[in-house]
């Protein structure tokens, strides 16, 4: 257990010391929130869907958790490059614990990032409709974080170097974000798009957050939580398996 704790602590220390990175990581969410939030607002309103800022805020929070989680998994590649990965891989600790420590650390960072962006959303004018269920949004952030940290570790363990990084970003992370309904409502979509959004795990995370924050939902909050937990469990097993197979 102490191994899990010390590796979790390592992630916390690295996070708290990388101020520049911390500030930089807010750039994209701010753009989506402020530019799209206010820019698309009038159109959205005219279509009879209410405030776009209200609608997009949970999407932007979900996006922040997604990016942060995937990056923490891909940070494996940096550790491989700078050699620290070797140090943990030869230690007399089961690799499952090494993976657990990293994943928990990455997930914690992702949730903190999500909370900070939530705060920015509130400052920008976002108001949760259901204050009583709003704290449940934290649970959904945690689920999203676990799902994508595990996915990140699975990918990070399978790549040899950073060359695959752009590929992963453009053909996996960005589609996951755009197909999640973070930016548009999931109802009334063309069939193909509806199918694509339904197999995107992030859809359920963002839908869950909208359910508890705004009281609007496409799949239902319970279904959201169940799907995320199931996908998370599968990806954790996959991530642990891939991690146990790393050779240097």
């Amino acid at each position, binding site marked *: 257990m*102490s*191994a899990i*704790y*010390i*590796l979790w602590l*390592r992630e916390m*220390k*690295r996070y708290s*010391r*990388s101020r520049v990175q911390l500030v930089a990581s807010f750039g994209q969410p701010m753009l989506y929130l402020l530019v799209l939030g206010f820019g698309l607002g009038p159109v959205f309103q005219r279509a009879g869907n209410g405030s776009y800022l209200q609608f997009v805020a949970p999407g932007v929070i979900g996006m922040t958790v997604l990016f942060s989680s995937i990056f923490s998994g891909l940070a494996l590649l940096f*550790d*491989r*490059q*700078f*050699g*620290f990965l*070797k*140090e*943990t*891989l*030869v*230690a*007399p*600790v*089961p690799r499952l614990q090494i993976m657990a420590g990293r994943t928990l650390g990455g997930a914690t960072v992702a949730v903190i990032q999500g909370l900070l962006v939530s705060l920015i959303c509130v400052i920008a004018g976002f108001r949760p409709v259901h204050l009583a269920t709003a704290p449940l949004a934290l649970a959904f952030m945690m689920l999203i974080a676990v799902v994508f940290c595990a996915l990140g570790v699975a990918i990070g363990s399978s790549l*040899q*170097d*950073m060359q695959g990084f752009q590929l992963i970003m453009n053909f996996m992370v960005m589609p996951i974000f755009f197909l999640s309904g973070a930016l548009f409502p999931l109802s009334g979509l063309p069939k193909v798009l509806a199918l694509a959004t339904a197999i995107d795990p992030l859809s359920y995370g963002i839908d869950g957050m909208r359910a508890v924050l705004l009281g609007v939902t496409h799949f239902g909050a319970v279904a959201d939580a169940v799907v995320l937990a199931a996908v998370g469990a599968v990806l954790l097993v996959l991530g642990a398996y891939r991690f146990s197979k790393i*050779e*240097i």
Partner: protein
Amino acid sequence: MIRVRNLVKSFGSFTAVNDVSFDVAEGEIFAFLGPNGAGKTTTIKMLTTLLKPTSGGIELDGLDPQTKQNEARKRFGIVFQDPSLDIELSAAENMEIHGVLYHVPRAQRRQRSEELLKLFELWDRRREPVKKFSGGMKRRLEIARGFLHTPKILFLDEPTLGLDPQSRNQLWSHVKKVNEAERVTVFLTTHYMDEADRVAHRVGVIDHGKLVAQGTPTEIKQQTGKESLEEAFLVLTGSTIREESAGSSDQLRQFARMWSKR
């Protein structure tokens, strides 16, 4: 303590380690010598569970590092040839993580960490992030960290690379000390033949993945009829310079260096 039988590792059509067999007895200091790209590091990686052998058998303290990975890992400590520190963390934090990962009890962790950081003259700068350290300091920290727990077998992969003579001396006297006082078996590689001659009980010479000679330094010298181990080494391995292809991690490191200079 270490038993290697007909060890083979191939990467595609390239055979890095080709049918290598040797034994290292408990309490022995064994130096593994060979030109660049001869297969030294690949052998160490297989011994330390980082790579799977293509064929052949390994025993560490009677354990197969393939099937009993964790048990085997408890038996050894390693100082890698290339960096393995977390450069964002401080020297003390790197020591702490290592101590926890190797199950060194807290009190002992603190005490040994202090002794070692003082021995390798890093104590005054223990709270600074490692990225501010010079190459030599990082190297010293890696070595200090390697001694934090007391393993049965210590692997040192070119530990003196980039160290000044003072630190080199410090290192070898410390290696001898733990070897004599705690009966630690030491498996090391180096390019400095005088070091091998001075420290090692026995040496093995590897070239193109094959073990071409093994024995005490005196035996090797007698075999080749040379005065020094360096001359004997050149007789055994020839004097052509080896080309080493840069692995993907080296390319990556170069790439990172390119960017960090901006």
